[in-house]
């Protein structure tokens, strides 16, 4: 974990994000604290991606306030994000990791690069051009890039959305291992099974608002809000 002031807790205070009539987040008040993973679920367009990007600092609230460990401005040094469709740098796999390390001002030691490759199961692929990896491999590389930065908070936007079951399982296992190692994981997913497997606490979003928030088991077995029940029954589509 990196030295310096902590990014946690990430506090959303009545945060709205919207442009020209389209509201993506609607007065969100939320506290993301250290501990087990926070899983964001909700139908398409509910604001999961926007919430993650706002938590990362890539999107500025149009109303309300967000703070990281109490600070209103925090450069993305202690947090890292894995996008849904990560962009591969036009370099080798090791080159991508090397870049992530150097931009985080971490020494680019070969041992560290190999360690990261191992963590995500990409051993031996160091020299391959990153753009020639399969979808699952690219997702894992993006994950390794994020980990390379030694973050305190790891944000993931539907990392297994376009993957086959085998790759999905691999990634979920890696994420669980990361969560256990002490890094705060905030993950968006549309897969309820994944939400259950990763565990932690679940936050249901709909139309940019927080509908319900509870521990995973509690939420999945006994949701309170009507929309939550509808969502679990597969009837909350938009």
């Amino acid at each position, binding site marked *: 974990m990196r030295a310096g002031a902590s990014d946690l807790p990430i506090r959303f205070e009545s945060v709205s994000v919207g442009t020209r009539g389209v509201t993506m987040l609607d007065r969100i008040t939320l506290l993301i604290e250290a501990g087990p993973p926070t899983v964001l679920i909700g139908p398409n367009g509910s604001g999961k991606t926007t919430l993650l990007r706002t938590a990362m600092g*890539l999107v500025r609230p149009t109303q309300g306030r967000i703070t990281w460990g109490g600070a209103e401005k925090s450069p*993305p040094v202690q947090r*890292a994000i894995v*996008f849904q469709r990560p*962009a591969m*740098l036009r370099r080798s796999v090791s080159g991508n990791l090397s870049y992530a390390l150097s931009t985080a001002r971490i020494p680019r030691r070969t041992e560290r690069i190999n360690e990261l490759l191992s963590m995500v199961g990409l051993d031996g692929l160091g020299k391959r051009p990153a753009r020639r990896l399969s979808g699952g491999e690219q997702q894992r590389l993006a994950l390794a890039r994020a980990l390379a930065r030694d973050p305190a908070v790891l944000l993931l936007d539907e990392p297994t959305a376009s993957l086959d079951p085998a790759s999905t399982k691999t990634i979920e296992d890696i994420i669980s291992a990361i969560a256990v190692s002490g890094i705060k994981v905030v993950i968006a997913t549309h897969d309820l099974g994944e939400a259950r497997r990763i565990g932690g606490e679940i936050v249901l979003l709909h139309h940019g608002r927080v509908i319900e928030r509870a521990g995973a088991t509690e939420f999945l077995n006994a949701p309170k809000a009507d929309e939550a029940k509808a969502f679990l029954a597969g009837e909350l589509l938009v």
Partner: protein
Amino acid sequence: MHSDSALELIFTGDPALLAIVRLSLIVSLSAVAIAAFVGIPLGALVALNRFSGREGVIVLLNTLMGLPPVVAGLAVYLLLSRSGPLGSLGLIFTPTAMIIAQTVLVIPIIAALTRQTIEDLWDEYREELTAMNVRVFRRVTTLIWDGRFSLVVTLLAGFGRAAAEVGAIIIVGGNINGYTRTMTTAIALETSKGDLSLAMGLGAVLIAIVIIVNTLAWSVRRAGEKMAG
């Protein structure tokens, strides 16, 4: 230089012919080098910054890619003529003037194509680089490095334009025998004298160079695809 056989001249390495080819390469390569030095950062700057009038600048750069060489030549001539503002530099009718004129022609090509390359690459990389907290200067160098294959092809395009033109360099250079005569200006001269066989010989050499440049461009592009995926 006689026209007995243009092919003979080429294969026996006639010194006058070699001097002409050497001058052509020096002028065009220098122009591309300077144009790259100015054009690549300029293109990157426009690609990565939002400023008022940006659309206008982009349209201007794209338009200037088609700047007629004689117009560029005339403009540079008026600048460098002894009676012009920069006359005291004594550059008129010298190879340096030719380099300047061709640089003027090539800068828009390199700047406009660099802007396109960098902008497209930035669209792809923007989120990741922003999320990785990459400083502005590092962004520029990253984009230029990752886009290097396209940029090399851009430089080759610039060289092709410079090597093929005659209008600008004949005006500012004066087509002086043994001093500012290049392949293209020599071809123009020999054709107007009716010495077509020599003109064709020079033309063959020029085409050979153009083919080599284009083959290089193609292989660079392929190498880029292989290396970076």
